[in-house]
């Protein structure tokens, strides 16, 4: 199974409520995904600096030591906001130099990078994870979340969704792919590095690679229909918005509620029932093999 949720706020005046509106959506999908959860949140105004979302996968957490180490290795202005095993690093230093440093720190993995995205994911019940990292207080223009019931790889924080590739790009997945190894064998010789053995990571890296090669998101997803074999409802977060697509057999559910104030996407309506004005919202089921894309105007 797995649950996916996404919320795009159309008006900046709603930004401060993003987390508060989204947490019940995420928690509402607990029965679909009780073992892990994650959330990618997009700031409405991208920073000039780069943001790196980090996670202490194993070992003792010592973010102060991490920052000291980074400053020693790469002198410059680095900001670090930590929240338990998560931290968000803000820096102007060259992206490759920062990544090279992160690779030297035992147990620390990079979950996302970009000027807008921050990413949190962990194992456990969605409500506990939301409380652990204070999801309800997050603000921003849009967010993409996931509750996981693992089928294709182990239950670990780095194998929870969302998965990311490149900058400000993330993907959550309900379903399973049957050819992730084949996709991986195609991408790795191109220099694309994989962090896990998860099938969704293959889809994420494939689509981001297509977009980096110049495809629009629509063209990348069209390529995905040929290259990615399996069942999927994908919800994709980008700096400016989110995209939704279901496989041609529509094996996995999705429902969209749209009002003048927001676009909300969920696996099931029960995660949308609490949203303000949802009874007047335009509600629809996305068609199979059809690409939906929303951005803040």
């Amino acid at each position: 199974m797995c649950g996916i949720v996404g919320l795009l706020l159309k008006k900046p005046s709603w930004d401060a409520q993003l987390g508060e509106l989204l947490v019940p959506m995420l928690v509402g999908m607990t029965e679909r995904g009780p073992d892990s959860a994650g959330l990618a949140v997009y700031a409405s105004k991208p920073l000039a600096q780069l943001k790196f979302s980090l996670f202490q996968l194993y070992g003792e957490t010592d973010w102060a030591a991490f920052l000291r180490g980074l400053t020693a290795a790469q002198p410059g202005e680095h900001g670090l906001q930590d929240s338990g095993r998560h931290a968000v690093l803000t820096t102007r230093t060259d992206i490759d130099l920062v990544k090279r440093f992160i690779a030297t720190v035992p147990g620390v993995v990079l979950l996302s990078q970009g000027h807008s995205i921050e990413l949190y994911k962990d194992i456990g019940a969605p409500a506990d994870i939301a409380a652990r990292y204070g999801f309800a207080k997050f603000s921003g223009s849009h967010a993409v979340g996931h509750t996981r019931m693992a089928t294709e790889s182990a239950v670990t924080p780095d194998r929870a969704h969302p998965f990311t590739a490149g900058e400000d790009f993330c993907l959550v997945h309900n379903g399973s792919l049957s050819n992730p190894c084949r996709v991986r064998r195609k991408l790795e010789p191109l220099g694309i590095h994989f962090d896990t053995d998860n099938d969704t990571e293959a889809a994420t890296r494939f689509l981001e690679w297509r977009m980096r090669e110049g495809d629009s998101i629509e063209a990348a997803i069209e390529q995905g229909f040929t290259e990615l074999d399996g069942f999927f409802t994908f919800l994709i977060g980008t700096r400016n918005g989110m995209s939704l697509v279901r496989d041609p057999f529509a094996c996995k559910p999705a429902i969209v509620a749209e009002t003048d104030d927001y676009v909300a996407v969920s696996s099931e309506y029960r995660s949308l029932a609490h949203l303000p004005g949802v009874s007047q919202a335009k509600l629809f089921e996305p068609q199979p093999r059809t690409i939906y894309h929303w951005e803040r105007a």
Partner: protein
Amino acid sequence: MSGTVDFDLAGGQPRLRELNGWLHGRAGTSAPPQVRVLHPDGAHNIAVGADAAFDIEVLGNVGYYVAGMNKLAKVTVHGNAGTGAAENMMSGEVRIKGFASNAAGASAHGGLLVIEGDASLRCGISLKGGDIVVGGSVGSFSAFMAQAGRLVVCGDAGEALGDSLYEAVIYVKGKVASLGADARFEPMLPADLAALAGLLQRAGLPHDPQEFRKVSSARSLYHWHAEADQEY
């Protein structure tokens, strides 16, 4: 017993169990009261397994399997339904005022399911004798392996309509994206027109039966042909 009994599902899972337990406790009773279900909020399994002539009004959107296995009851959903609405219904009438998700009326043995809006993929899959009337369109693979009963589509049908159909009959008014294996158009006979008129009338959907086409099984899959080499 008379009057209306309200169940407000805003209380969550315990209230849902209370509702279904209450319905099951009155199985087989005559003249049961009217029931209203408030704040369904997309909950699954609302009013499953009813077995008496209840009149159940659900005021909002529901989740999966609403009115599943229904016997005798009349269930009206004033909203949209998730996957498997009225699946395995035995008798009675289930009406969805909005749209229905995948596999509506799956495996229904009897009764009438009316979906006033659209139905998604696999509507009436493995239908076993129930009747389904869809006011809008149906998605792909509808009436797949349907064995008995009737599916009426007032809008369009998606790909592979009636694939591997047995003895169920489909009446479709709009465009058909494609027919499934072994499904074929057949002439509308006077008996079809009369049956369809009756179904449309019961559904309260004013369409002219003359504008519908009939799809039924060519029965070429009934017997295995060694020469067919798996090409059908």
